[in-house]
């Protein structure tokens, strides 16, 4: 496939450029004044309180459930799987494999699995009643170690070139095994839903979520009711990061079942402790690399095994694995690649989407491995990468020729320059000589992230958006994408305003409600701007064409509010449609063979490089991150300040995962499920972050924009751990790089040193 020279269509510039400027944020003011309503803030007169009864065992048979609540439960209702099935509900959380029940029926497959639901007029009554629900279990032997698990949720394979020949002819082969653990999203707002009973044929749920139509699909399946019978509306959502991609399906289903049972609205609001132990986490993994090099340090062959822990049910694991495998060989040139991926079942709470979605795991492994490769080959770690990073038009592991792959090297050069890499390394060497008990180091990581759903996913999603004409020359955006902190409503308004040439203030946006908006797909996979934003731009162009035709002017000229209002009025008076819709049209012509994993895995990639500077205290082995420099190509920054906010936030989550965040499990249950013991970075731990924003436009994104939400999470952790390894001259192959692990590695590297 010869790469075509991309032409970015330049749309006529509006008198005020809206895209590319820091317009006032749509959702901003209410958040600053305490007026934004999150699910727990909703005033719901007459609402009951819902509580979930959960399994204490990682694996067990359910023998019986006794529901004699006595006086404690005089007013309470209880719902179990039996009740569900008796009333003709489908006890399945519809996602990919349809293997997860809303309520465990005959067996539990993980600790904290929902076994029964209770609702009562007050929280205290509901808790007392729930304590009276006696479940008799027969505990079974659980599978808790994913490295020994045998039940496979999904496998995945990539084969490019001839790996066996590559290894046979290699000058050097380097091996390494890398491990990463869970990461908990720890959005500051826990999960929660409010559900109403069926009123006038419609069941309404409102709550904290990323994907209203996922919830909608799960509820129509649960109740066996048609689409119009279920209505899902998003409340202000206090962070998601993937943790509210699919889990809200469960919460919403539970709340709706309780509302159905008691005939009243039900508030099902998790507290922090429940949210931490029961909901999804990032997939832990073990990644094994074998790498063949030629004498010049070029990558001849890469053989990678990716093993992920999916937890008890399939949920999103196949897609996480898929993305992990596609990104496992990194942004590097290599003609011979073999990647084998497996995601397995353990009796632990199902793992799910978390910003990066498989890429942080494989990027950690690869970038740690490349430092090891460099050392083994006697090469400078920067030079090894520079020599092997993709250039424009070269092919990835799936054989996709990527037109702007050379941005990977531009990002590397930009990060090296801004961090003054060589000079800083020399300064660190001087510092280390002068300080007996402090060590400074530098670490580097190169990484990339495909925008949108993997493979043919976007074609299957067939996302749809609409624009609605309003009075006074205004337009309303109708899409299912949720604002969860990234500024969705703002950038959508910017895109539409820019295409139409209207002022930003003329474009309205709403929080999605499935009764009002078409399904533009989930708010995941870094797709909101490049995919949904592009469809919105298409819709705006269509609207412009329709109205321009109506008043006999050429399309593509900016509208004034007045002219637009006039054209709209004419259009509506003549019986024209108030709404214009547009669907995903696969503008890049992307095609992917999902059996052989060959072809265009994504329509666009964003490229990045991160440099981290650390200081390790040899008294306590604590790491202080002094600075992170990240150069990130995002295609085009629709709103530079919001874009920077995404990049800074993602890097900080990566620092947290690298150094502090660890799920400690006992018997398959999270034992440190409090913010006291699951350590998030505070403002003190978070280093100064310097961003270099590069823009290699994506021809088919709105104004060239690519997805940026996940990219910054992908490479921060290996940059930090590479820096620690550099500072102390130790091997670290596991996350998080806690002081305990660093101390152990330090001692292991110096057996002759006195131990304390």
């Amino acid at each position, binding site marked *: 496939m010869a790469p075509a020279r991309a032409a970015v269509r330049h749309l006529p510039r509006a008198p005020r450029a809206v895209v590319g400027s*820091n317009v*006032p*944020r749509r*959702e*901003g*003011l*209410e*958040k*600053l*004044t*305490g*007026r*934004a*309503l*999150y699910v*727990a*803030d909703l*005033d719901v007169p007459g609402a009951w309180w819902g509580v979930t009864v959960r399994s204490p065992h990682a694996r067990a048979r359910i023998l019986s459930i006794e529901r004699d609540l006595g006086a404690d439960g005089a007013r309470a209702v209880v719902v179990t799987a039996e009740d569900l099935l008796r009333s003709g509900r489908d006890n399945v959380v519809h996602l990919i494999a349809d293997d997860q029940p809303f309520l465990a029926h005959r067996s539990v497959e993980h600790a904290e699995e929902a076994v029964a639901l209770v609702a009562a007029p007050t929280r205290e009554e509901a808790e007392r009643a729930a304590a009276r629900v006696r479940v008799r279990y027969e505990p079974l032997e659980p599978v808790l170690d994913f490295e020994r698990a045998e039940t496979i949720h999904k496998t995945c394979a990539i084969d490019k070139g001839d790996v066996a020949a590559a290894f046979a002819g290699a000058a050097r082969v380097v091996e390494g095994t890398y491990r990463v653990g869970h990461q908990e*999203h*720890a*959005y*500051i*707002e*826990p999960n929660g839903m409010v559900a109403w009973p069926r009123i006038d044929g419609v069941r309404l749920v409102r709550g904290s979520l990323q994907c209203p139509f996922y919830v909608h699909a799960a509820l129509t399946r649960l109740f066996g009711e048609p689409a119009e019978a279920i209505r899902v509306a998003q409340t*202000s*959502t*206090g*962070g*998601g*990061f993937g943790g509210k991609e699919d889990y809200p399906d469960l919460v919403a289903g539970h709340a709706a079942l309780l509302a159905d049972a008691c005939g009243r609205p039900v508030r099902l609001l998790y*507290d*922090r*402790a429940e949210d931490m132990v029961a909901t999804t986490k990032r997939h832990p993994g073990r990644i094994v690399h074998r790498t063949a090099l030629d004498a010049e340090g070029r990558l001849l062959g890469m053989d990678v095994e990716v093993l992920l822990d999916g937890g008890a049910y399939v949920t999103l694991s196949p897609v996480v694995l898929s993305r992990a495998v596609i990104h496992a060989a990194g942004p590097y040139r290599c003609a011979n690649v073999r990647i084998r991926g497996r995601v397995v079942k353990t009796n632990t709470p199902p793992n799910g989407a978390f910003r990066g979605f498989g890429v942080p795991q494989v990027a950690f492994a690869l970038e740690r491995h490349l430092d090891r490769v460099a050392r083994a080959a006697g090469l400078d770690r920067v030079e090894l990468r520079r020599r092997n990073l993709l250039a424009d038009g070269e092919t990835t592991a799936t054989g996709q020729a990527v037109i702007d792959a050379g941005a990977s090297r531009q990002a590397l050069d930009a990060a090296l320059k801004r961090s003054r890499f060589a000079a800083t390394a020399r300064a660190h060497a001087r510092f280390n000589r002068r300080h007996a008990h402090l060590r400074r180091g530098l670490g580097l990581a190169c990484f990339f992230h495909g925008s949108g759903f993997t493979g043919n996913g976007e074609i299957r999603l067939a996302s749809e958006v609409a624009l609605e004409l309003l009075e006074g020359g205004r337009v309303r955006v109708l899409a299912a994408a949720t604002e*969860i*902190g*990234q*500024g969705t409503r703002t950038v959508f308004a910017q895109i539409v305003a820019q295409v139409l040439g209207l002022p930003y203030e003329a474009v309205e946006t709403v929080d999605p409600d499935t009764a009002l908006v078409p399904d533009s797909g989930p708010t995941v996979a870094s797709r909101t701007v490049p995919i949904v934003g592009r469809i919105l731009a298409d819709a705006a162009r269509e609207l412009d064409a329709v109205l321009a035709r109506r008043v006999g002017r050429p399309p593509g000229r900016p509208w004034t509010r007045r002219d637009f209002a006039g054209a709209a009025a004419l259009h509506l008076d003549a019986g024209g449609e108030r709404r214009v819709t547009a669907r995903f049209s696969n503008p890049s012509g992307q095609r992917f063979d999902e059996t052989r994993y060959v072809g265009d895995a994504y329509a666009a990639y964003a490229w990045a490089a991160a440099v981290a500077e650390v200081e390790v205290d040899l008294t306590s082995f604590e790491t202080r991150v002094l600075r992170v420099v990240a150069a990130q190509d995002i295609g085009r920054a629709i709103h530079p*300040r*919001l874009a*920077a*906010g995404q990049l*800074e*936030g*993602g*890097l*900080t*989550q990566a620092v947290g995962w690298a150094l502090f965040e660890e799920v400690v499990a006992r018997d398959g249950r999270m034992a440190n499920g*409090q*913010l*006291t013991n699951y350590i*998030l970075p*505070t*403002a*003190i731990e*978070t280093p*100064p*972050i310097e961003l270099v924003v590069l823009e290699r436009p994506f021809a088919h994104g709105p104004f060239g924009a690519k997805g940026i939400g996940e990219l910054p999470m992908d490479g921060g952790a290996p940059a930090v751990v590479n820096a620690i390894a550099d500072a102390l001259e130790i091997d670290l192959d596991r996350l998080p790089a806690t002081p305990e692990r660093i101390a152990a590695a330090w001692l292991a590297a110096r057996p002759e040193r006195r131990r304390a």
Partner: protein
Amino acid sequence: MKLRLEVNGRPRSADVPPMKRLLDVLRDDLRLTGTKEGCGEGECGACAVLLDGELVNSCLVPACQADRRAVTTVEGLAAPDGSLHPVQQAFWEKGGAQCGICTPGMLVAAVALVERARRPSDAEIREWLAGNLCRCTGYVKIVEAVAAAARARRPGAGARRPKRVKR
């Protein structure tokens, strides 16, 4: 008990159990839902309010200890005419909020700082805000906003300078 307190400059009262959390009194009895619950452990700071001008986590304060005292919440930061507090204004301009759930507590904490410190350094701001967790921003624009607000405001300056209302 009959709880009597001043909230955002106005006298308020409520009949509450004495050990009810101040957080719940504010949210449920007084319907001031701006203050949030993020953890119930005093770790995240989403519930932060000022109690007689001092920063506290309201999830750890019993109602009885707020009796006859003055509480300031996020709802009390803007002026009666709607103009934003300089700290809110700075957050607005610098992008100090993303999902917004930590923002009320963060603003209250920031207000407490700028009223005490003339020109807090980056390190001082970070130390002061260490009890307010944010998962979205990486704190970068929060720290910038607080530094800007501190520059704009003289501590103990008395009446707030009105700012343009933003829509």
